[in-house]
């Protein structure tokens, strides 16, 4: 019941937030620059060519009309065509989305599988060597510029040691495209060679992306576990002589997890932001590089397209976080 209410609330705000986002990006692309068409046409274009382009793109119409026209076509799934790839933007985005999702999910899995146990251990063995080491890792994790980390990893592993490829998503031919995720497709088609190659290509970018996320998760889990260790029910279980591992791995961890779930949702936001820059460093063919390049080339329809997708992904992620939180915390289900 509560879950339904939360879902409805999130969805109710989906449209207005997205619309707001569109207004913001529309302002950025159409209103701020002196003459967007001139910008797009480039310095060499003659005034006549610029005017021709303006009419072709419909930029001569009043701004509100342009906006309404854009939104109407968007609702019908038409995001317009990219000025550079000449292909419908929806097509570009759908083609590139799996690369970003695969990178982000792998980074998420790594940071969750490593982050939570390390967080718990550093709380249990507080002020031990592990705890202090992790504190250094977490503090630096939040302070490293992810693009610089990427470059440093490239310098060490790719260039100096040669263990991993420098960049790109795969050297050879991609596996038969079933889902668009190289790892999954390669696994499904038992093509372990490509699977290995894809994994190697993923290594550095995923590590670059995972490091700040890992730092945040360790820090948050540690605080959560420390907090639960102070609670009365832990004191009661210690007083009743229950085995320490049972108290830690069943009762303390379970309580700490309920708050960590929401943190994992926020993590997705950090990862998406990181992906944009990390993809640029590793020439990763995802929507991140697509967004950066379209911005650099003033391909505004593409930028608007990316913003809509990023916004949508964000709202869906928040919805998933609410769902996960309700599933994890039984009290939510019984009210």
């Amino acid at each position, binding site marked *: 019941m509560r879950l339904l209410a939360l879902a409805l609330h999130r969805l109710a705000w989906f449209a207005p937030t997205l619309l707001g986002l569109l207004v*913001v990006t529309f302002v950025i692309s159409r209103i701020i*620059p002196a003459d967007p068409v001139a910008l797009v046409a480039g310095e060499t274009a003659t005034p006549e060519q610029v005017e021709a382009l303006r009419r072709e793109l419909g930029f001569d119409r009043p701004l509100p009309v342009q906006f309404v026209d854009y939104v109407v076509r968007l609702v019908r799934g038409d995001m317009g065509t990219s000025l550079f790839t000449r292909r419908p933007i929806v097509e570009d985005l759908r083609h590139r989305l799996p690369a970003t999702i695969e990178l982000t999910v792998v980074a998420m899995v790594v940071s969750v599988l490593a982050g939570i146990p390390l967080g718990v251990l550093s709380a249990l063995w507080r002020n031990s060597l592990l705890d202090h080491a992790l504190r250094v890792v977490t503090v*630096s994790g939040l*302070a490293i510029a992810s*693009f610089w980390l990427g470059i440093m990893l490239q310098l060490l592993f790719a260039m100096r040691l040669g263990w991993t490829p420098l960049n790109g998503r795969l050297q050879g031919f991609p596996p038969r495209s079933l889902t668009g995720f190289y790892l999954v497709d390669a696994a499904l088609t038992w093509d372990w060679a490509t699977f290995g190659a894809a994994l190697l290509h993923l290594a550095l970018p995923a590590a670059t992306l995972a490091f700040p996320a890992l730092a945040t998760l360790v820090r948050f889990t540690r605080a959560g576990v420390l907090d639960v260790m102070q609670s009365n029910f832990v004191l009661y279980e210690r007083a009743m002589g229950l085995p320490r591992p049972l108290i830690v791995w069943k009762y303390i961890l379970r309580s700490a997890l309920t708050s960590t779930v929401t943190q994992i949702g926020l993590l997705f936001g950090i990862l998406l932001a990181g992906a944009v820059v990390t993809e*640029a460093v590793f020439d990763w063919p995802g929507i991140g590089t697509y967004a950066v390049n379209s*911005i650099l080339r003033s391909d505004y329809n593409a930028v608007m397209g990316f913003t809509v997708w990023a916004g949508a992904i964000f709202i869906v992620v928040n919805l998933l976080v609410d769902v996960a939180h309700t599933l994890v915390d039984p009290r939510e289900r019984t009210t």
Partner: protein
Amino acid sequence: MSAVWFVITRLTRDRSALIGLVLIALLVLSAALAPVLATHPDDVFELHPSERLGAPSGAHWLGTDRMGADVYSRLLFGARITILIGIIAVGASLAIGVPIGLVAGYHHGWLSDLLMRVSDIFLAVPQVVLAIAIAQTLGPSLPNVILALSVTYWPWFARVVYAETRALQKEIFVESTAALGASPWRLTVLHVLPNIASPIIVRASIGMGFTILTAAALGFLGLGPPPPTPEWGRTIAESREFLPNAWWYATAPGLAIFLTVMGFNLLGDGLRDVLDPRLRRSRTARDG
């Protein structure tokens, strides 16, 4: 001034906060005394192609870049850019975000919902994307970077202040002062604001670190101040071409960014405890 001195002395007792203070002092000193400390102060503008990509040596402690300029000296002047961007961008974000968060937090109803929805819109997309879009549209320059960062960062402060104000209203002393006959306006300015000052200062410090990272990313993507400004982000971008041999060219600016942001993060954690005498968390959670 005694309050500031009181805070500093308390901070020095906390090891990590002390490191934070030292790092920031290092940044500020190197920025202020750049002309004195730099071994080749004029290298910010002059080029010596003949000495390009020299390894770190007695003359050039951190080697030279692709134009033969001394990496170490350019880093020092780069510190000025970093501080400038950080302070103005965070300052502007505070100036916009805090009042909005305060008004939205205190007055329930449609106004608070509207303000928070607007900030949600900005927070719905990674800040770096919007910042890139704005910076590129306005053209790469220092003021444009600062504008791009401020416009996309105020919602973060608005949300923080909103949450703190809402939490504060549950405090008994707010209800009791209202019962004493204090008007909502008096409560907001004289009671709510001072009590959320410390959480804001803590977030501002962490926000500085975050803003510097984002500014460096913009620089890296070529959207920061144009050459020859010695901006750290763009220096790293330039250096990529000459890796792996000119390793110092990429490593040095990255380390500078890392140490600066670490400084602000550590200071933020330290301030969190010192500034909240009443809400001082128990010893266990403190080193969380």
